[in-house]
């Protein structure tokens, strides 16, 4: 029995959110902050507005979102440290402070952006459904203090079948139901302009991303180290010279140290292995350690080809886990060819290191296709900000392949360029990771709605609709 399946015994009550009466007043947000003593600007509940720029063709409404205590909670399933569990009394999904290692992964996999890192304690925190209050027969702070009565808790409403385009679509079965907007006779909305055709892209601020290279550089370094080590061992299996034992062991330990340093509670790093049944993050940690052990042993022994292939296979097992860590998140940049980026990266680098065109040419092509797919899946303006990184990455990759093809074994610059290309690719991967958040979902839903309505993309105002502007 997995943690997730044992935990569905108690069904939590569901939030009922009336979009008509909610005016986005933020009282629930402050009520939550008060109840949970969040006075450092960290908030567990957020208001996400649909159509914040008040596009004339759509209503504006607000979603009050915190943890929805999902029946199939991704945070609970994917927590590597088994720190998240369902409260048997209330059904609330709770993070155990004493078990949390502060890896932030629950925040990544939650489509509602509910878990928040508490830097002072190094652990993740989130809405507890005010479990203490619930157990005492009281409502949570947010629902009991909503001035318009828009947010409530109702034990009888099932959470399945949420059909609101502005709300993250997920199979997590969140315990929240929406009552729709009732009034919006927008045809009468004056010179703000029914004739006005502005795309939401023009009026929406660039939304912050959950994961960026700047915040997660240590993970980029760790995964890159893993890829390089696996490639090195693969090259050995393919016939290249034997990697230096100390270099592999040292680099491997350094990668581990860097990834542990990223934890809020590094001393609990060992806990990351506990959820091997359900969490790809646990599997990544275990397989990385396993690969390192096998590789070091094989190197020390100077093992035969089968042993080298075994070590390489262990390495690719780890890289599969690395890719899966990122694949299980709800992402808006869903581009299947890019979902095996670490594995293919390892094959490509291994091919270059071993001077094996039969390996690096197809792998390089796959890298290019994956990269292009990732780039194409990025509709936002941020893509343009990253153009130089994209150009540099493709140029370095292509140059490394051409150099390796032209000069064969003598082409050490090919190796340098390939490493550079793969590092840039890793950076780009983090910079583009487009994890679903409520704000981004609301923005995309507005984009889709406006596209369906076929509003013109140019800014033109019908003068007759706005007489005497001024």
């Amino acid at each position, binding site marked *: 029995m997995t943690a997730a399946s044992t935990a569905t015994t108690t069904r939590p009550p569901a939030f009922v959110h009336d979009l008509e009466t909610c005016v986005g*007043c933020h009282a629930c947000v402050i009520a939550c902050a008060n109840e949970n003593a969040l006075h450092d600007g960290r908030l567990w509940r957020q208001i996400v507005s649909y159509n914040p720029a*008040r596009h004339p063709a759509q209503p504006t409404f607000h979603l009050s979102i915190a943890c929805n205590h999902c029946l199939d909670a991704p945070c609970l399933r994917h927590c590597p440290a088994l720190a998240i569990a369902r409260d048997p009394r209330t059904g609330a999904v709770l993070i155990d402070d004493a078990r949390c290692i502060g890896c932030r992964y629950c925040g990544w996999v939650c489509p509602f952006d509910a878990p928040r890192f508490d830097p002072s304690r190094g652990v993740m925190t989130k809405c507890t459904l005010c479990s203490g209050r619930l157990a005492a027969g009281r409502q949570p702070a947010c629902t009991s203090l909503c001035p318009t009565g828009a947010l409530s808790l109702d034990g009888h409403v099932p959470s399945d079948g949420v059909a609101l385009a502005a709300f993250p679509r997920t199979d997590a079965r969140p315990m929240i139901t929406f009552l729709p907007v009732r009034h919006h006779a927008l045809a009468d909305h004056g010179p703000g302009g029914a004739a006005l055709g502005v795309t939401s892209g023009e009026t929406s601020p660039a939304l912050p991303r959950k994961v960026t290279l700047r915040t997660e550089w240590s993970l980029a370094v760790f995964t890159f180290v893993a890829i390089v080590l696996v490639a090195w061992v693969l090259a050995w299996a393919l016939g290249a010279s034997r990697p230096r034992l100390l270099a592999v062991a040292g680099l491997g330990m350094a990668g581990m140290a860097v990834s542990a340093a990223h934890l809020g509670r590094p001393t609990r790093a060992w806990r990351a292995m506990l959820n091997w049944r359900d969490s790809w993050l646990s599997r990544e940690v275990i397989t990385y350690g396993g690969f390192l052990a096998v590789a070091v042993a094989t190197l020390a022994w100077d093992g035969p080809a089968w042993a080298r292939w075994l070590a390489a296979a262990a390495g690719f097992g780890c890289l599969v886990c690395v890719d899966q860590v990122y694949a299980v998140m709800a992402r808006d940049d869903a581009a299947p060819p890019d979902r095996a980026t670490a594995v293919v990266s390892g094959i490509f680098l291994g091919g270059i290191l071993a001077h094996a065109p039969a390996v690096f040419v197809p792998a390089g092509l796959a890298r290019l296709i994956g990269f292009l797919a990732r780039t194409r899946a990025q509709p936002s303006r941020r893509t343009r900000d990253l153009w130089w990184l994209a150009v540099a990455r493709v140029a370095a990759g292509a140059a490394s392949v051409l150099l390796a093809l032209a000069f064969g074994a003598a082409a050490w610059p090919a190796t340098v360029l390939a490493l550079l290309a793969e590092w840039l690719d890793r950076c780009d991967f983090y910079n583009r990771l487009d994890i679903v958040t409520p704000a981004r979902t609301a923005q995309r839903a507005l984009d889709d709605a406006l596209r369906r309505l076929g509003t013109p993309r140019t800014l033109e105002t019908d003068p007759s609709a706005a007489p005497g502007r001024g």
Partner: protein
Amino acid sequence: MPGRTRTVVTACPRNCYSTCGLLVTVEDGRIRRIEPVPDNRATATGACLKGLSYIERVYARDRLLHPVRRTAAGGFARVSWDEALDEIAGRLAAIRGAHGPQAVLFYAASGTKGLMNRVATDFWRLYGGCTTTYGDLCWPAGLEATRLTLGANEHNAPWDLANARLVVFWGKNAAETNIHQMTYVNQALDGGATLVVIDPRRTETAERASLLLQPRPGTDAAIALAVANVLVARGWIDEAFVAAHVHGFEAYRERVQGCTPEWAEAVAGVPIASIHRLAELIGTTRPATICAGFGMQRYTNSGQTMRAMIALLALTGNIGAPGAGWIFANLRTQVFGEKDPLAFYPPERPGGPFRVSISTALLGPQMLATTDPPLKMAWVERGNPIPQNPETPAVLKAFRALDFRVVVDEVLTDTAREADLVLPAKSLFEQTDVIGAYWHDYLQLKPRVIDPPGEVRPESEIYRALALRLGVDPAAVTDTFPDGSDESVERYLERRLAALPGVTLAMLREGPVRVPDRAEVAFADRRFATRSGKIELLSTEAASRWGLDPVPGYTEPVETVSALRRDSARFPLVLLTPNTKNRIHSQFGHLPSMRAIDPAPRLLIHPEDALERDIADGTRVRVFNDRGSLTLAARLDCGLRPGCVAVHNGWWITDGGAVNLLSMARETDMGHGAAFHENVVDVRVAR
């Protein structure tokens, strides 16, 4: 530990419609929860985000807990109360000796309501007088227009709005500024009512409307007059009501004859169809309520505008009935003359210890112009006049021209930063008081819940200590000011409450109390305290007191962008400075959770105006006119009327968003209000 947790019923003293009851839970001497007080029916669902944020505000890290003195380097350093009070007393005595007491300006704004505020006046009377202000920033034009037309500022009980079949929010965004009113709007809508919003912005309230009119700011009277024109033309007049209760109908009918919807369309820039639709709704829907906001009556023509709006209700018999009426302000609880002698209007015969000579609307220029004696010192409490009063540059200059400034506040506001001495102010939980309201008619006790933190002292004790240092007879001091004990404060309050027979402190201790002369429906007896005893569409007092046309009409705002001049105007955009749910004027914005919700000031601009100026969402722009400029980030808002831009009121100079850097000191046409919403600007990408 049981026994160390207690709950106290109190009330929020901010300048806000809702004036919520607050049920405060204290654990081990610290405030832990703020919950609803169902006995206050108007706010039974509990406080807004600001009321809830008191837990953060009271214990905020940047709260002043002791007096501070400006240092030579421009910062502030802690001083003892003795040092601070000795210095103030020395200065006060010296200024009184050299220039007379009226060289001291006492300035208090609306930051904290309550009967205890009277101790300030008590002190300045003992000092020998001072210079004070008249008028008000907030609402005088509307109050005076209502008084002239209906005879009194009263309205139906808040929950009565649920009975309306037509609700018109005219320049009011209740969803942000009076959230509890939305409960009754929703009930009315559930009952099939129609909601109309008239606002240059598509506000959160407008989101629920089936008709939104977005007039050019300051032209609302044109719409009201044109609607009256249609009411007359279509015969949608309640003849019997008008004959019995309206004075001046013939004159008004004549006035609106030329005010056609075509004319109003040209003036106000709203589609003619919308004007007809509004007229039809007002003409054919009973009962109808108009909820008028405060922002709209901060224009140079706004008193007459408000009179024209009330006229629509008079013509259709929508006064004095359930679900009908004019909701602007309910002054039933304002029975204590808290502002006495700081009356709204300057005294008819000047003289006495108080020189009531400075119009609040003109604070900066008139402080600078004051002579005989000129101002040497200012004492500011309950207010932040430098960013909040019109023409911030002039206010700043006037304060800097003084020899000595004392500010009492909870935090270092823009005004406090200009002071020589800043004294720490009590929070709402730290002294007992009695609070009135202006939307509902509850009087509420605001008991002391916790002890003042640090060295904080309530104003009554500051004044008491100062009076003793100034050599006032100790018996008079004891007689005038309560001492530090709750009993003494309660005795002081009981003396003040004696002015209102039927309400005692003991009753208030049981919970919120509606004033004895309350009425569910205002003017139900159809008695109007005007000169004619009727609703006056023709007011001779408007002419005699304010020099205005006795019959309301439309005059163009002094500072505006007309439809014709838009392309050639030097400043082609009208700046709106609406309030936000996140602050009460300049309060609350400094709290970390408010910062998390609303991190920085923004210029809201319509995409059409933005595109003309190469402005995209997030672009840093300069908003400017001849008076000043602001540099902030742009946010595109399709819901704004093109030609209007908006910056929320209440950001500080230190936030980079003080909107009155752009406004001008001007009075409204009546009531000595501030016409500081009348501003034209232009916007450019910041370099």
